[in-house]
């Protein structure tokens, strides 16, 4: 096959960080080319260089055997290179259609926006992707999952020859991911070349032809997937063998109920939800995007409090009016959207880490922060989570996606909670770290921490959950015990025909 793009010894550094070091490899036309690597390996940086969003310090891009120097993203688009960034790059105050065509608006009479065309072409592209989103809907009102789909749509309307997808599935549920894969195959069929970044092994082996592995900003190897296997890829990424993560049967013997939720609902997004979370249990909460899982846990956490239903902690009924109450009761919530809800991007890693612990007086005395205790704690968590950052003062916003996720987790564990709710715990986290996080959660559970895990990544829910609840359209669709658990059963419950939606399954209280 012909080489479409070749990357020639690209080097890129940021203040205090050498993100890419002399990276070279070829991308063959009409293939789906996976790029893998640990968090902070330099994947996004490399992609942004290829898409003209970043200028390399040195090195050269070659497109169709012609040297390519990009003045910016517009320029890249002109050469047929489109990118979907790892973080959403959309204006929440504009409509879907306006976002899709931002900077490339179809014009009527030279100056005015041709709304009709804009709307139609957006609708058409969305239809082609098989998503039913109203082009006139205000973007900010959509959940991230859908915003992610809009990002992809935004790249597609320009009919690129080279499409870069930077962790597109990280905020998509299994179902939406399938949509994406269909689109990807469809594009490949039409000769479009795709650079595909993900941390999910299975996606790579199911959808890609070739994989390029980066480690610490250096190119490790580019190999056709046919000639390799998961373990090798992992080894290439991590530089060592990883003990594969296996399911672990929960210890027998009835554990006391830690968190008891009864008839929780907000009348719309989630209704009449009842379940028990036992001490030291890891309870999975599966479902499609839009099932209302995030809203549910937010309701438990008091942000905003659920209008209907009751919550009991260790048998005592509790009123949780605001997150502060929840924290005081020993609850922790790692939110779904780390940028909007999890982190203060403008503050340093350390400051973010200590923010929640600070309030509980863990590292402060008489209202004043104890610098030693703080730096001590921060250091511990940065090591424990292997957070890749030049210094604890580095802006969280400048960390790689996965490392940001680690900071959010660490921040909440620093509060030493008794119940930890995690919404998409490993979104954008690399295999190595995933394994660590799973191990960590198990360890914490063993020490008696109760964990409620929302995950749209089926293998993930299966691997770590002792028990799985499935939500559908705002109601509990059912519960799956450890032994019956399988992807098929989960999908069956999660995606039942909409005839049944609305009516909720009977409480699953023990």
């Amino acid at each position: 096959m012909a080489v479409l793009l070749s990357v020639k010894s690209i080097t890129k550094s940021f203040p205090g960080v050498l993100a890419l070091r002399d990276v070279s490899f070829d991308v063959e036309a009409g293939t789906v080319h996976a790029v893998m690597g640990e968090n902070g390996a330099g994947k996004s940086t490399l992609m942004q260089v290829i898409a003209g969003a970043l200028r390399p310090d040195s090195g050269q891009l070659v497109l169709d055997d012609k040297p390519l120097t990009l003045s910016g993203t517009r320029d890249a688009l002109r050469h047929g290179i489109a990118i979907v960034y790892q973080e959403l790059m959309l204006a929440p105050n504009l409509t879907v259609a306006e976002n899709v065509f931002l900077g490339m608006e179809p014009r009527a009479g030279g100056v005015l926006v041709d709304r009709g065309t804009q709307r139609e072409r957006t609708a058409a592209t969305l239809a082609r992707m098989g998503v039913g989103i109203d082009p006139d809907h205000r973007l900010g009102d959509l959940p991230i999952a859908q915003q992610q789909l809009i990002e992809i749509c935004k790249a597609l309307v320009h009919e690129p020859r080279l499409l870069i997808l930077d962790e597109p599935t990280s905020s998509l549920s299994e179902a939406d991911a399938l949509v994406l894969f269909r689109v990807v195959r469809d594009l490949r069929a039409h000769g479009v070349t795709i650079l595909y970044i993900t941390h999910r092994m299975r996606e790579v082996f199911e959808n890609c032809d070739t994989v390029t592995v980066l480690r610490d900003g250096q190119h490790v190897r580019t190999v056709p997937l046919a000639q390799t296997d998961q373990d090798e890829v992992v080894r290439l990424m991590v530089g060592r063998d990883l003990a594969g993560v296996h399911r672990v049967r929960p210890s027998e013997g009835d554990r006391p109920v830690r968190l008891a939720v009864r008839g929780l609902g907000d009348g719309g997004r989630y209704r009449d939800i009842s379940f028990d979370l036992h001490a030291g249990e890891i309870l999975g909460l599966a479902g499609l995007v839009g099932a209302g899982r995030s809203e549910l846990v937010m309701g438990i956490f008091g942000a905003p409090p659920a209008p209907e239903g009751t919550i009991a902690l260790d048998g005592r009924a509790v009123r949780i009016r605001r997150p502060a109450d929840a924290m005081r009761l020993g609850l922790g919530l790692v939110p779904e959207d780390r940028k909007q809800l999890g982190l203060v991007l403008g503050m340093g890693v350390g400051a973010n880490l200590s923010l929640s612990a600070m309030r509980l007086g863990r590292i402060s005395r008489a209202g004043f922060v104890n610098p030693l205790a703080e730096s001590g704690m921060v250091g511990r968590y940065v090591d424990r989570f292997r957070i890749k950052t030049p210094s604890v003062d580095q802006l969280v916003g400048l960390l790689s996606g996965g490392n940001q996720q680690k900071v959010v987790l660490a921040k909440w564990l620093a509060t030493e909670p008794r119940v930890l709710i995690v919404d998409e715990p490993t979104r954008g986290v690399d295999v190595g770290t995933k394994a660590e996080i799973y191990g960590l959660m198990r360890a914490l559970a063993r020490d008696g921490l109760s964990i409620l895990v929302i995950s749209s990544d089926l293998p993930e829910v299966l691997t770590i959950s002792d028990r799985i609840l499935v939500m559908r359209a705002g109601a509990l669709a059912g519960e799956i015990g450890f032994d019956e658990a399988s992807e098929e059963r989960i999908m069956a419950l999660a995606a039942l025909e909409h005839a049944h939606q609305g009516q909720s399954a009977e409480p699953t209280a023990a």
Partner: protein
Amino acid sequence: MSSAAAAEGTRRSIAARAFRSREAGIIIALAIMIVGLSAFAPDFATSDNLLNDARNFSFVGICVLGQAMVMITGGIDLSVGSVWGLTAVSSAALMAAGLPTVIACLLALLAAAAIGLFNGLCVTKLRMPPFVPTLATMSIARALALVITRGRSIDSFRPDGDAFFALGGGSTFGLPNPFLVFLVLSIIAGIVLSRSVYGRQLYAIGGNERAARLTGLSVDRLKISVYVISAITGGIAGIIEVSYLSSAISNQGLGKELSVIAAAVIGGTALTGGEGSVLGIFVGTVILEILRNGLVLMGTDAYWQGVFVGSVIVLAVFIDQVRKGFWRTR
């Protein structure tokens, strides 16, 4: 609720119905005021008085249009009041120096535009927070106005005929000319903001500048343009006021930046950018003026007036919030 507001803000540009509902709250507030005033101040509802008001709020109103565009990109322009003054005196001075009216006004507006350009360059190329350069030009433009007049008022100028004085003092079809100017500019601004590529891109910058930049918008040029526009609107207000007062003095437009920004904010323009509509700021402007006018008509104790002004501002915005609240939860 700001997001809810923005939601409406965008919907507006798509469905005219929602457009109305976006500003419903503030319009209700205005309606209440009008009813109240007509009741307590019989002279208020007279056409004479209303026409006076229309003339009066036009000066600030014109500036608000420019200011709103700056605010939509997430900026702020404090220099507008001083630019107003500088343009006023310089146009008068140039006429007094014998230049033809049109030339004099154009030159004065050019000076205004230059100040706007300076603001824009500082904000974009030098990455300064908008507050800084516009605060600086606020002080500089005012000083230049003083330098030109040496504190005296310019009134000796006799433009070709009194046609010039009609601009601010005259009326057409029974409507005061300044109001007509304001009306026309508002319509233009309304279309530009809600329908034009340029306008939508301004909202995009206010909504997510980084995304706008990465999408290839020439953010800097767009930002510079709004500061220039804002300065020019300030200049237009100044020139019209000169023709209205038939005399220019260096402290014209003094402190007006506050009324201008206030009108925009009351009209639902967000200082954080990305939100705002012409209808909203129009209403905001009207509220502030009929408030001032109404208080005098009702013969309120001069010393207490400030209390009423403040209270009404809060009330108006409160009504707006309440409405949005209802709108959100239903």
